[in-house]
């Protein structure tokens, strides 16, 4: 009896905590928006973050993209061979990359690389009281620390997605044409035939939204760290888990709305 009531108690507590957390993230988003439109913009800080989020993620994103495209071509080939429709492998890879896998895998990789780093960085600053020091110096921590990261996330993830789309299709081509022996002309022709401009652009809109989600959650978790080194580690883990889940869930709804 007592145990049951404790369980219900805990359940209610965790629901409350989660709802509260969601509200706080939203409030943080609003304050980021309000600070974003207030000049002066710290361009140097923004570019630094863009370099960190975008340029330094190229390698991992290219690797992810190229192997995803390759494996899709390989799997698709076995499926399509049953219907003698091997020529559709190219368009399957291209559609899959541009609409779904490009944005989602890129943002997951960026979450793992940059989102975790944001949480760890801000968390360390919080537990070593550097953020408090910023406030004391009348420098708003949201403006100086969070706004550049969010801007970098929103702008860089779509660019990374373009790269991932392209190398993914290239990977599919390398598996499909030389390895599996699909006619190269038909492979390319079917891509241009079945992929629309809208497929690419909607994928990029998705990527921008994922970039916002991952940078906002990473910053939020880092910004609200407490409890020393252990707290920093916890914040980093939570940031990656929450951001990944949010990306995957929102992906479903974005797809339902867009396509």
């Amino acid at each position, binding site marked *: 009896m007592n145990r049951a009531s404790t369980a219900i108690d805990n359940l209610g507590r965790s629901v409350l905590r989660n709802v509260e957390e969601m509200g706080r993230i939203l409030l943080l988003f609003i304050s980021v928006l309000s600070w974003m439109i207030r000049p002066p913009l710290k361009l140097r800080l923004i*570019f*630094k973050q*863009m*370099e960190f989020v*975008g*340029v330094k993620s*190229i390698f991992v994103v290219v690797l992810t993209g190229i192997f995803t495209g390759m494996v899709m071509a390989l799997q698709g080939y076995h499926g399509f061979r049953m*219907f*003698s*429709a091997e020529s559709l492998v190219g368009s399957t890879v291209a559609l899959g990359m541009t609409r779904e896998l490009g944005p989602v895998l890129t943002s997951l990789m960026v979450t793992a690389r940059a989102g975790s780093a944001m949480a760890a960085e801000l968390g360390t600053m919080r537990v070593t009281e550097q953020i408090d020091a910023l406030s004391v110096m009348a420098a708003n921590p949201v403006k100086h620390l969070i706004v550049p990261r969010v801007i970098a996330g929103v*702008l860089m993830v*779509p*660019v*990374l997605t*373009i*790269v991932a*789309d*392209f190398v993914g299709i290239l990977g599919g081509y390398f598996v499909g044409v030389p390895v599996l022996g699909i006619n190269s002309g038909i492979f*390319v022709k079917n*891509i*241009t035939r079945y*992929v*629309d*401009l809208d*497929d*690419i652009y909607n994928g*990029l809109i998705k990527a921008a939204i994922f970039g916002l989600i991952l940078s906002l959650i990473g910053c939020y978790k880092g910004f609200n760290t407490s409890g020393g080194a252990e707290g920093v580690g916890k914040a980093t883990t939570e940031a990656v888990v929450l951001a990944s889940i949010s990306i995957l869930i929102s992906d479903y709804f974005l797809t339902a709305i867009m396509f």
Partner: protein
Amino acid sequence: MFSISSEAKVGLFVLVGLIILGYMSFRVGEYGFGLKKGYLVSAVFDNVAGLEKDASVQIAGVEVGRVEDIRLEDGKALVTMRIIPDVKLARDVTALIKTHGILGEKYVEIVPGSEWETYLEEGERITSVERQADIDRLLAQIGAIADDVKVVTTSLSNVLGGEEGEESLKSIVRNMRDMAESMNRIVEQNDEKFSTMLTSLRNASVQMEKTFSSLNEITAGINKGEGTIGRLVKDESTIDKLNKTLASLQQITDKINEGRGTFGKLIHDEETADNLNETLSGINRYVTKAEQFRTFLSYRGEYLFDTSDAKSYLELKIQPKEDKFYILGIVADPRGRRTVKDTTTGGVTTRTEEWERDKVLFNVEIAKRWKDVVLRGGLLESTGGVGIDYFAFNDRLQFTFEAFDFDTDRDPHLKAYAEYRLFKHLYLSAGWDDFLSDEGNESPFVGISVRFEDEDLKYLLTSAPIPRD
């Protein structure tokens, strides 16, 4: 060590991203602006199931265009195709819908024609269309053929199969044998009779020979001019008379041909033909106009609750065209007609209002119909006004709003009601009369009306000069 600033790195990265995006958009959107230059031709197919917009149009397997649009036209599919400008289509090309493989997508194949003098121009239509041999149709045809064959074999087996069939076949053979035997018997038994028959036939031919020789003699006599017939044939004067008759006949026909004389003029004068044509078309016009012309008579009685009185309408609706009509009507309103008189005596103007109770009011309106809406205007209850009718449920239900008797010193007479066709000629209505009235004339009402088309009246009206609008 030389180091690149983070701005430069980011800029370079974004540039690369944009170049890739531009390249992909260009490749994907290739046909978007590449083909817009082509010209449009169309073809009508019975069935285009499976053919999609943007499907390929090919000649001998080479893509020469795309399907621009597929629409329904008179129960058939009108397919519009955009053909690239450097491909010219002969006027007698054939269009057919084909399938890539068995499960593949559909495309339009154009079989080149042989007439190379003129080409199809923008917007023209390919007249020759072949039905494609798709799997569905093939299977359906094979099924139909199998059904036919089955029917034949079934009836054959019904006739021949089984003991009954065998028995009847046997009896047929037996009957034939019997017949041959009896014929043989007949010939044997009547051998003698046949020989006498042949003898009498020979005698008859001898008699006929004699008859022919006497006929010969008679014709020889006629030839020599003997007897009445002979004289008639041989007499020269008979032939002269015949000649003269023929000559005068010739003269008459010549005159007619040249257009001389009354009859000739009638036949040869162009004006006559024109007049006749005109008369005929005039009659035609008149008849069609008379046929279009419809007249309706209606009576409507309305019971006004608040004044406990009834209002009656007698209306004639003249409809020269489907969407245009005139209404002439008489209204008996128990409240009568209001007349206002301004009398000025010694600089003071007094206004007296009078209601003439026995006065009859008139409706004279012109109306025009657009789809379900009729706009009317003219005299309503002897004052200027307008009305709007809205029809619903195939004209069964009618909503009407009328506004008339506009006067600066009081509110106009507004009336709104709905009318429902209960039976063919019987209508029920309910509404609110003069609902803005500031003189207590305002009243809800129910009404009943009878309306029918009057054919006799129509012919009465059309036999008089047709009123022109």
